[in-house]
């Protein structure tokens, strides 16, 4: 299964560059017992996400099993093992947003994009995530797309909100 994952994760040149990046992180930092989380953060910053190859490398270097490292990665929502889209949509499911329909907004987004929470669209444009309180409870429900905040979102309006992003992407494609 791991081998399939490795193969699926693009070509071997990609794997090589991942290993190089990881080696660089280990060279630049002093490694101690408690290094796992900081190393994972650095790896995610460098690569944008945490591919299996990176986790295996980190596990080997820190003398831990892949299961332990994956367990830590899975526990913290800020780690992602899949490449994220250009636009990360985060739906607040804090108490206020939740009671004012955050969940319905989320379902609408899932339906609209054809992905579920934690996934990324095939064209790698959108990722969908859940967040906890963006500090705009008065105007719940709230979603964020990258740094942009959208308030009082209605499920029926999600298409409208996403339209400009899609358009921008389409234009870029056309230029290419």
């Amino acid at each position, binding site marked *: *299964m*791991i081998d399939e*994952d490795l193969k699926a994760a693009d070509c071997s040149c990609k794997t090589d560059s991942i290993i190089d990046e990881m080696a660089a992180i280990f060279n630049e930092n002093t490694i101690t017992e408690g290094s796992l989380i900081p190393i994972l953060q650095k790896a995610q910053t460098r690569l944008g996400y945490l591919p*299996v190859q990176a*986790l*295996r490398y980190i*596990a*080997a270097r820190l003398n*831990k*099993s*892949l*299961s*332990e*490292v*994956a*367990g830590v990665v*899975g*526990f913290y*929502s800020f780690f992602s*093992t899949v490449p994220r889209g250009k636009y990360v949509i985060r739906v607040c499911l804090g108490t206020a947003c939740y009671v004012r329909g955050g969940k319905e907004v989320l379902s609408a987004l899932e339906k609209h994009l054809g992905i579920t929470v934690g996934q990324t669209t095939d064209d790698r444009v959108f990722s969908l995530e859940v967040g906890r309180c963006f500090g705009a409870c008065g105007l719940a429900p709230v979603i964020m797309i990258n740094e942009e905040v959208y308030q009082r979102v209605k499920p029926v309006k999600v298409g409208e909100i996403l339209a400009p992003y899609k358009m921008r992407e389409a234009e870029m494609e056309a230029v290419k």
Partner: protein
Amino acid sequence: MPRITINNITREVPEGITVFEAARETGIRVPSLCRMESFQPTGACRVCVVEVEGAKNLVASCTTPVSEGMVIKTNTKRVRDARRLAVELILSEHNGNCQTCDRNNTCELQSLAFELGIDNIGFTGEPACSRTDMSTEALIRDNAKCIKCRRCVVACNEIQTVGALFPQYRGFNTLIGPAFNYNLADVTCVQCGQCAAVCPVGAIIEVSHIERVWSALDDPSKVVVVQTAPAVRASLGECFDYPPGTLVTGKMTAALRRMGFHHVFDTNFTADLTIIEEGMELLTRIKKAFVEKQKVALPQFTSCSPGWINFMEAFYPEFLPNLSTCKSPQQMFGAVAKTYLSKKYGCRPEDMYVVSVMPCTAKKYEAARPEMNSSGVRDVDAVLTTRELGKMIKQAGIDFPLLPDEEMDKPLGVSSGAADIFANTGGVMEAALRTAFEVITGKKLPFNQMHVEAISGLEGIKETELTITGTKEEWSFLEGVTLKLVVAHGLGNARKVVDAVKSGEKEYHFVEIMTCPGGCIGGGGQPRPTTDEVRKKRIEAIYREDEGKALRQSHDNPKIKQLYGDFLGFPLGELAHKLLHTHYTEKERI
């Protein structure tokens, strides 16, 4: 000593114990589910809650230490309701069917539900989704039955330091298992089955070989031969409600005959054989090092515990040359049975079916290793755990307590007491010393009952030294030499020993490692539960078996002498090498 009051009984209890333990000492049973004897409690299940005066909430008794003046109530309505709620919640997500479950009648969740009088589940949870992992030779995992108690995580990481199982994901999505919900075969797992031994439910069980054994017994074209490991005779009784530490060697033999096995033999026989081969191997290495000043791999590590072999292949491949090249007694038996015996019986190796009964799950993996076919076919065809044998005896309708005591068959059923003690930590070392000492000096090992006190018992790592004096002529180079010896059980302890050797901090000549805590008597295939208390009882039983034998040293076994005379030739000779020895290879660590 703090004074506490528990259900209106006031008494002093030892400092530092938990409320759970205090209740138990007072004769009050508090139910528990995630708690594991002698390990840090996790407080995961909340089944053990009690009322403590002055505390607003109920407290988990397994994580709460006693304190002076504490007033505890273990049986109030509030407590009963909370316990029931905790178990109902577990049951509402539990996706299993008791009637068809491996743990039917031995399941802690099932008996807890009964004990708490749960007659109806108050809510419907989303049943855990079922994905059965059958990727390994030894173990089956079914997440649908997992109650997330994390005992297996403790076993795999703290006891064994393998790290195959960890909590993955979070919240409701939490799964206990390998990374990314991979199969067990996709990560490093040594197949020791300690996870299965501590799992309270049917979420980790052994791969059953029961059906294939019944089929072989039904097949008129097969000569079906059975071997039983030393540790099984000291634990099988527990499957029939005998107290731990009851020896059932004779009844076990009778049961195997009644089940239809054509020849009932003993892994003990090849344990004796192992001592001859492994002892000679050690002496040869020592001779090369001392006399010929050659570079040889010392210390020599024992090689009869297959989980340990798997561990070395993945974690310490650079030390593979230090492993004795001897196969385990199980595999020696298979190889000897399908060559020497089959010739004797006039049948082809492929017409012989070798079944072993083992306290171990890793033996299932070992029997399936590609190396293990020196007879030309699979040397061992099926491996039953002690638990599986218990089940088969019941399936056969045999009333175990009513069985007479019977003797095993000759020749491969004859063994010395030195073979019996292969079952417990320190035993292989002691057996080897009994033989090596007499070979070198012509005298018996100079201890009471030939027991090496310093390496017996449940201490995790046990060191000792033995100075050799009064050597025979040919061994005179060993005169005055002090052999440095160490015994470890549980792979976490094994790891410490290997690390100390690796760093140069320690030097030894001979190292005995057993994968499971306590040795094979605490194996992953033994009747549940195995606590230290149970381990001690089983070990006592094994020593009784040893002391009761007329022969106490492996080299005194007349059938071993006969095997060399009629068939094998010499210890470490060409045929011995072909059948009884092997080599292992590095595995990737994941």
